[in-house]
């Protein structure tokens, strides 16, 4: 490098030096990612405590006086809303999306850093408005996370006063924040990739986040529309969704609106939302499996197309959430068919993950254990989805604990296992230190086995016909006494699993100070984020010289290579050129393409 390029680099980067601009009002994607993650974790802890309280009531009904019916419904509602939107969506896209996209595609930062910073602060505002609803008269809304009108905005539902208003306002603010972030993710991936980084060479993590962001940008407007209209119904008394209704003996001024219209709009957002959470998890887990099994991901191109297929299909299945709302059987048939078709690309992904592990050099590191646990849990939750996707099976099961078990397995536990695996995987890059392994193993086993102890029995509760959403089950004839015992066991498991998460957070803090120092590429991975000149990467990520990409991220255990991994910025090797010139010597799969001799790289 010449002095002049170095000077240009410094001038162009103008790295902030003041503490305030460096860590608080930061426009650096890595700092914003950490801000997003910490905020999401903090609000996630609130949701964790709410789930404890909920389980305490179900496991030990009547023992805890402060949990009355109203409080119970508020816990249920806020737990669901926080986990789906403010934790999982924000963590995968705001946290991992922000951290990984520029580093993995080889950019210096997001293309609109200022907008990116704004996205975080608006997200924080949404979280604060949500938290504020705990402190207004009447407390937060208890309408259920789906906020179905008419009950969500009528007196009698907890949080009628301020809670529901703040909830809707918070969602609207969140959507604004997400849109600002999402514009950045999409544009960065399309425009700021390093030299040689074609779309079909991107790591699957980036693909997953990319497709999920696109889906979010198209699906969140539906939540925005339904949220604004519900807010107007509540605040100024319009009748978008409100039918003629008698409340507490008094006919209300509402009339003519349709609660079903709300349900359609809500689920037009709500179903893609499941995949907005799942697709980044699919992408990330593919990379974890490949790196820790020292083997190329099986069927890379199929994996990409499966992500896209799932993304498209997820927009035409929403009404399977509404079978019990009543619908024309022909509609039910259509949505059951589309729902079952989604199983095809999803199964492709599961097979490919399994085939990646087949005959691989599996390193049972903590990220790998979480990744394998994800496959098991996701298959488990996915299979119960096949039951629920069929109208005739869904109708009797829809209002029971079977559904609670299904969606927690498939979109609660499975993605959260990936979040954990990904944190153990990338923590060394983010902080320069390894997470404590002993604590990590305890965390893994307690979380993995514990969540099965929680959700496995719930399937049986569902088959017995225990209704969900009930505050308690006393004096209900068809529910056997053994249900109470099972509920108690589930509650104890939930308390233990929750405690393990507190230990995980302790580990995050402990390892920051006392953790083993990590070198720049502790897992010997190929993707670009592990090839930065500094660990943790400095402002601008790459120092003076930008990386050049010569290969995909999955060249593991290549026959003839000096080591069992070949980073994406490693120029073509002599043995590859030799093999290209003599294809008859090696198997077809190992034949590399012609590469222009380019300078740069490592």
């Amino acid at each position, binding site marked *: 490098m010449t002095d002049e390029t170095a000077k240009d680099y410094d001038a162009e980067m103008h790295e902030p030096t003041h503490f305030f601009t460096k860590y608080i009002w930061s426009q650096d994607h890595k700092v914003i990612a950490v801000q997003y993650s910490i905020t999401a974790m903090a609000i996630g802890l609130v949701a964790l405590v709410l789930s404890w309280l909920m389980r305490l009531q179900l496991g030990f009904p009547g023992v805890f006086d402060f949990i009355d019916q109203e409080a119970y419904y508020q816990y249920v509602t806020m737990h669901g809303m926080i986990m789906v939107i403010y934790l999982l969506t924000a963590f995968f896209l705001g946290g991992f999306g922000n951290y990984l996209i520029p580093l993995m595609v080889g950019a210096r930062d997001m293309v*609109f850093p200022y907008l990116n910073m704004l996205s975080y602060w608006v997200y924080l505002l949404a979280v604060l408005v949500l938290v504020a609803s705990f402190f207004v008269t009447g407390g937060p809304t208890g309408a259920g996370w789906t906020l179905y009108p008419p009950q969500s905005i009528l007196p009698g539902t907890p949080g009628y006063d301020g809670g529901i208003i703040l909830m809707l306002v918070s969602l609207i603010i969140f959507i604004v924040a997400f849109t600002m972030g*999402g*514009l950045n993710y999409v544009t960065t991936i399309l425009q700021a990739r390093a*030299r040689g980084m074609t779309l079909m060479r991107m790591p699957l993590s980036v693909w997953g986040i990319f497709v999920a962001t696109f889906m979010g940008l198209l699906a969140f407007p539906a939540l925005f529309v339904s949220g604004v209209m519900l807010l107007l119904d509540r605040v100024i008394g319009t009748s978008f969704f409100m039918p003629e209704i008698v409340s507490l003996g008094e006919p209300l001024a509402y009339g003519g609106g349709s609660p079903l219209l709300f349900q359609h709009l809500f689920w037009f957002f709500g179903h893609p939302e499941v995949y907005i959470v799942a697709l980044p998890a699919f992408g990330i887990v593919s990379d974890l499996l490949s790196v820790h099994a020292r083997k190329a991901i099986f069927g890379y191109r199929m994996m990409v197309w499966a992500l896209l297929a799932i993304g498209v299909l997820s927009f035409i299945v929403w009404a399977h959430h509404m079978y019990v709302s009543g619908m024309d059987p022909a509609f039910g048939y259509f949505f059951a068919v589309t729902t079952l078709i989604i199983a095809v690309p999803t199964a492709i992904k599961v097979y490919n993950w399994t085939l990646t592990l087949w005959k691989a050099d599996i390193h049972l590191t903590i990220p790998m254990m979480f990744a394998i646990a994800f496959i098991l849990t996701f298959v488990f939750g996915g299979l119960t989805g096949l039951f629920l996707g069929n109208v005739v099976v869904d109708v009797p099961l829809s209002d029971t604990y079977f559904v609670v078990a299904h969606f927690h397995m498939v979109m609660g536990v499975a993605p959260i296992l990936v979040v954990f695996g990904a944190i153990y995987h990338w923590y060394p890059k983010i902080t320069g230190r390894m997470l404590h392994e002993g604590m990590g193993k305890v965390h893994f086993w307690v979380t993995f086995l514990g969540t099965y102890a929680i959700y496995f029995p719930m399937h049986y509760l569902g088959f017995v016909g225990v209704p969900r959403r009930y505050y308690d089950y006393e004096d209900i004839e068809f529910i056997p006494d053994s249900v109470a015992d099972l509920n108690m066991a589930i509650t104890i498991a939930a308390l233990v699993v929750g405690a393990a998460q507190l230990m995980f957070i302790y580990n995050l803090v402990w390892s920051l100070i006392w953790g083993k120092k990590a070198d720049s590429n502790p897992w010997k991975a190929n993707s670009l984020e592990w090839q930065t000149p500094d660990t943790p990467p400095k402002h601008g990520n790459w120092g003076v010289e930008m990386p050049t990409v010569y290969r995909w991220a999955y060249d593991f255990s290549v026959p003839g290579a000096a080591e069992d991994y070949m980073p994406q910025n490693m120029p073509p090797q002599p043995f590859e050129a030799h093999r290209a010139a003599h294809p008859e010597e090696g198997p077809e799969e190992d034949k590399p393409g012609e590469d222009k001799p380019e300078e740069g790289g490592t």
Partner: protein
Amino acid sequence: MSILTKPWLDDGKAFDQAPGDGGASLKTTRLGLFVFIGVATALFSLFATAYYMRMMLGGWQVLVEPWILWPNTAVLLIGSILMHWATRLGRRGDMVRARRMFMAGGVAGILFLLGQIMAWQQLIALGAYARVNPANAFFYLITGLHGLHLLGGLVAWGRGLRKSASGAAADKVTASMELCGTYWHFMLLVWLGLFLLLLVT
């Protein structure tokens, strides 16, 4: 494409496909704007769908469109043309006239917003409140959101004006004009769609 092709292997074209010239160039910003336009299109289409579905249900009375919407539409159309003109002049290097057109295009946007507020006042004067009739409620809601989007465009316009006043390079100023122009055309299209929806129902 054969199932055996391996797009991640280098066919010699990789460096053309991903030349690594990122950063907030005009091309990047233009793409960002188009993605945003996609999001806004989804938003307004969903409102139109909700409008259509709600229309078939009870309590719906046909909205009498205030006459001022016609001149408003004309003003927005003129604004769009002015913006387009500004970009063309800017590309030709005639920055003085380009700036004049650019300024006039933004003023047309402001006039349109004022006109929309007058439309609201006309409706309110007639007693057409939002809670009386869902058609009224949709009118306020959709025009309000369209107005908010245009207001956001005016912020970008203000930044463009500041850029041209501070003597920035001509191509940067023209880039601002082009982006504002694209957004103005989009706002016009959305408005025409919404107005048509109001007129036929």
